[in-house]
């Protein structure tokens, strides 16, 4: 056999709740209890409210650049639901706020972050989340390291890391996938393929037919899922998490979704994408779909929606108040977190707010002797 097949692979696509409200009983039955679905829906709506208000805060000059999460809530929430809060880790990018809140990040932290305040990253003890990551594609290596630490110490923790379609182009994505698979770290790589990386469409980002198939390069399972389908996402992530926790190593999941907003508030997507495309995806909004599901199953009505909308507004108003109510950071915060033990040079800079030396008290640089006859 001079030309023989030495390797074969395939990639599956999973969908449980389709955009018309169709539900696959075989895969979806008893997957998430009715109560839980309602709670997840409520969370989704609240997160959407925060997202819209954050947008307005930026527009009215009360916040810096903000990347809306709108449209990607099912991927975030489905994933977060499959992980154990306080045990497992979430290593996010910036479009999965809903997952972070579920795992204990106070909502106003996200606003603080985008208000230019590091205290938005001061993750509270017991909350296993790393801060939003600005340099694209770099944090998955941290996730792999955290996962491997769990394995080394037999802690049973699993890590889920979120990143976009664009992030898969970075070398660090490759290195993270490779390290995770070589070391069989307990981690789930959750690619939110929202079809765009700012203005660059998926087809210009990669020549591969799916992102899921990139797993094959690492001998890792890869699955594609409808990212706007809470059930589908939960299902495939849960399988991957269970496998990881059982020592089965990492997985890559491509959640096919869409960025319903601009890239950030600094962006204007009309420059580069068609309204028709956007419209088609607006119809697939995970909120609409999940509400349809709830209504079909008599778990929801207009009255509940009205109450929820009101409740969400109240919650978010409070969150904004908290974020805006925090006193300005002190100038000396500039200095105090550079090292655990500040070197003399930084102490001098902090205490004098100067860089070079004239006018600084010579005592501050701690001279042991002083020649007199200068």
């Amino acid at each position, binding site marked *: 056999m001079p030309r023989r097949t030495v390797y074969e692979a395939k990639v599956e696509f999973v969908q449980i709740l389709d955009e018309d409200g169709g539900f696959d009983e075989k895969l979806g039955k008893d997957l998430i209890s009715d109560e839980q679905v309602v709670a997840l829906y409520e969370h989704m709506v609240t997160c959407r409210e925060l997202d819209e208000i954050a947008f307005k805060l930026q527009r009215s000059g009360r916040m*810096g*650049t903000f990347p809306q999460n709108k449209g990607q809530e099912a991927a975030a929430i489905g994933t977060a639901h499959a992980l154990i809060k306080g045990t497992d880790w979430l290593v996010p990018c910036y479009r999965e706020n809903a997952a972070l809140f579920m795992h204990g990040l106070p909502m106003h932290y996200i606003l603080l*972050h*985008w*208000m*230019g*305040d*590091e205290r938005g990253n001061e993750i509270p003890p017991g909350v296993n989340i790393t801060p939003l990551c*600005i*340099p*694209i*594609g*770099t944090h998955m290596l941290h996730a792999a390291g955290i996962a491997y630490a769990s394995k080394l110490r037999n802690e049973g923790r699993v890590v889920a890391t979120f990143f976009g379609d*664009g*992030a898969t*182009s*970075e*070398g*660090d994505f490759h290195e993270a996938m490779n390290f995770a698979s070589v070391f069989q770290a307990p981690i789930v790589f959750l690619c939110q393929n929202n079809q765009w*990386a*700012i*203005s*660059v469409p998926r087809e*210009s*980002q*990669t020549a591969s037919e799916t992102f899921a198939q990139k797993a094959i390069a690492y001998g890792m399972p890869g699955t594609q899922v409808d990212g706007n389908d809470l059930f589908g996402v939960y299902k495939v992530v849960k399988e991957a998490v269970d496998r990881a926790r059982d020592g089965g190593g990492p997985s890559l999941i491509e959640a096919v979704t869409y960025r319903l907003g601009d890239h950030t508030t*600094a*962006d204007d997507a009309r*420059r*580069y994408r068609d309204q028709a495309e956007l419209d088609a995806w607006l119809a697939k909004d995970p909120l609409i779909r999940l509400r349809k599901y709830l209504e079909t199953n008599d778990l929801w009505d207009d009255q509940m929606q009205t109450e929820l909308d009101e409740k969400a507004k109240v919650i978010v108003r409070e969150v904004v108040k908290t974020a805006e109510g925090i006193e*300005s*950071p002190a*100038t000396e*915060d*500039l*200095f105090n977190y*550079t090292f655990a033990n500040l*070197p003399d*040079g*930084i102490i001098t*800079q*902090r205490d004098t*707010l*100067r*860089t*070079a*030396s*004239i*006018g600084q008290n010579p005592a501050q640089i701690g001279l042991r002797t002083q020649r007199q006859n200068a």
Partner: protein
Amino acid sequence: MANLTLVQSINLALAQEMEADDSIVLLGEDIGINGGVFRVTDGLQKRFGNDRVIDTPLAESGIMGFSVGLAMAGMKPIPEIQFEGFLGPAYDQLVNHAARFRTRTRGALTVPLTVRVPVGGGIHAPELHSDSPEAIYAHHPGLKVVMPATPYDAKGLLISAIRDPDPVVFFEPKRVYRSFREEVPEDEYTIEIGKAKVVSEGTDLTVVTWGASLFQCLEALDELPEDISVELIDLRSIYPFDAEAIIESVRKTGRCVVVHEAPLTAGFGAEISSQIQEHCFLYLEAPVQRVAGFDTVMPYYKLELDYLPEAPRIKSAIEECMAY
């Protein structure tokens, strides 16, 4: 002659050079239909086509290494890195390859690329969108590094950079992108890399600066007592830099304050201070002062103006240097 912003003058220079030399290609993230996140390449893809204004995948090492290949094959690539913080992933290709091929091959293979990079703080941007890494690249042999502060200088320096047979890091101070307009000639012209500009003449003290800090220095100068005569030098080129202009000035004034946004320690101000001392030792009436970013991580934007060398800090350094 038109009244242009920095963004516009760079756009103009790119368009004119592309028109004149079809080996020039632009490549980077979102530089095509979107015109770059700062719109610096606005309209260029439409005008020159997808083959010459290329949207790349999201990968800075890729952008830089691919550009090195294009350059060795005879093209003149002008990669854009979206923000200076994302030079990090491109660092290895830039300093270990782009900068070294001429030396490595005794000139057989060369890398005439110009990498454009928005730089510096002051615009309320997120983390890693406000740093000033010029000293890093100035320290690596084989790279030229420039940072124009005005629309006029930007056009002339960019044209020089593009025509330069070696790699040039072209830093664009984003705080200045749209902050003011200036008359910029329509015709092409060059400004020599390595030449500083004496912005205002003076006899008592020399201020050396570059990038957006130029405007903080001007503000500080405005607030100084009338009787202090300051010579203000905009370095424009970081490597090679115009030691001669500085030395000449400091031999005249005897005092110098250097101002930059990057952290103090091992910042480029240290090189300038050292060279002044080496060449003007007997002329100096006070130690050279450095007003710079602190030796701490560039903060998120709530504190950025406390970090950056703003006018009051510059003013007091000048006054104390005068009083020495």
